[in-house]
């Protein structure tokens, strides 16, 4: 057997416990069993480390069931084990299709994990804004920013368990809310936004234009309130280090 064939047999042994592959690889199964155990334990440990709150919320047995399904269906591909947690939300949609709270908890934890090591970007220095040409200003947001619409109280569940207190019962929200995850300093954070503020942030991020945001808010709130709201949102984004870049600043 050449090296390529051996490695493909080994892959099948690890992922499917194919006995024909095992027989071709070694007469003694003990060593192969060690490698297969290592493979599964490593992936299970990775998922446990990436989704500690989800695990606490649904309990060990349910978590391990979902993780085993994920491992079975998603052999790892990336060179970094840190990437293996991607796609757990999709797995939960098939394992627990009627539990949107779990899908959203998984979104929160995966977003926090990726925000933690996202590209660095210095927060915007408010002093530079004195020279901004606001009609033309383009907004740049933190590379760590993740946004999603939540239909359940998953954010409250996450916050409670993160604080070490009893989580509320899972429940649907009266109306969907917007959640953001981003990194401020070295700490990845979760925040739920009012629907209008979430929509404004989504719009500003997609359009990148402060002028367009002003126009949209003026359409909705009227001239005075729209401009005031846009200014307030801008200040809030700067204060929370969500905004990292404003282009179109005139040189003083």
């Amino acid at each position: 057997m050449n090296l390529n064939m051996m490695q493909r047999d080994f892959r099948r042994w690890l992922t499917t416990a194919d006995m024909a592959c095992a027989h071709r690889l070694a007469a003694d199964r003990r060593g192969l069993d060690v490698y297969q155990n290592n493979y599964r334990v490593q992936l299970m440990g990775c998922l446990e480390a990436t989704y500690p709150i989800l695990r606490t919320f649904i309990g060990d047995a349910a978590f391990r069931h979902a993780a085993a399904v994920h491992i079975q269906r998603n052999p790892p591909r990336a060179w970094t084990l840190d990437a293996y947690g991607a796609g757990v939300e999709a797995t939960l949609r098939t394992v627990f299709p009627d539990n949107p709270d779990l899908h959203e908890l998984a979104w929160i934890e995966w977003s926090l994990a990726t925000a933690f090591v996202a590209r660095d970007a210095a927060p915007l220095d408010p002093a530079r804004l004195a020279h901004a040409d606001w009609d033309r200003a383009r907004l740049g947001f933190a590379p760590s920013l993740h946004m999603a619409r939540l239909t359940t109280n998953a954010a409250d569940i996450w916050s409670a368990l993160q604080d070490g207190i009893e989580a509320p019962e899972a429940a649907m929200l009266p109306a969907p809310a917007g959640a953001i995850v981003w990194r401020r300093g070295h700490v990845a954070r979760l925040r739920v936004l009012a629907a209008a503020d979430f929509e404004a942030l989504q719009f500003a991020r997609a359009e990148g234009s402060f002028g367009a945001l002003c126009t949209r808010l003026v359409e909705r709130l009227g001239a005075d309130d729209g401009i005031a709201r846009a200014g307030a949102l801008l200040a809030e984004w700067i204060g929370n280090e969500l905004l990292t870049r404003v282009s179109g600043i005139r040189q003083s």
Partner: protein
Amino acid sequence: MPAHPSPPTFAGYGLGLRREHYRDFLETHVPVDFVEVISENFMVAGGQPLDILRRVRERHPVALHGVSMSIGSADGLRRDYLVRLKALVAAVDPLYVSDHLSWSRIGRFNSHDLLPLPYTDEALDVVCTNIARAQDALGRALLFENPSSYLAFAGAPMTEWEFLARMCERTGCGLLLDVNNVYVSAANHGFDPFAYLDGIPAQHVRQVHLAGHSQGDGLLIDTHDQPVPDGVWALYAHAVARCGPVATMIERDADIPPLSELLAELALARRLGLREAA
């Protein structure tokens, strides 16, 4: 032989940098000559891990130890991995850059484990081709660590130490001699660990790992969750007597004890190293 400069011959005594000890390394004087980090933990875009590494690097020389190069992959190396590693090397200016004589990836599958190679001429060709590519990409000679293994391939014509010797000779790479791995593999495959140490090319050994292991079901398992046992210390003494002074570190990956316990083990390594190399 490639023209990449050889890694330092002796860099003292160090510890693996683990999360549990970040504060010790950042806020106190830790008496080590270098620290070793797992490369992949810092091959990230940004955030706290890179900031910690930068601050530790201001205080200590750093060795980069990888687990995902997959130098034995029959279908070559991943370019994106080498690009990321090269960026980390440029940022850290490490003492050593090392990985394992093993494979993890085939095609799009990555096992995230250090899987064994058959010690055949074909595998040697694959490994040497991959090492040459990695060394050219990174612009430096690399070190490769002998793995712990739980499976030996029937009919492989070379011993592991013969394979390592030929690999070093053909590529100019160095060896990271993991003495615990020699102990574990010797027990699992029934060879003499002292013959192994006598068979490796001593002039290529640039770094030594010391660690502990656990008893599995009929096999020793390289768990790195125990203090260095007496049998490994005895092998270390033999290795240093043969190789001379060599950069040595305690490698603990699980059940991480207080730093003082690891420093006590490192002090023992230092005493043994100085005595045996004299």
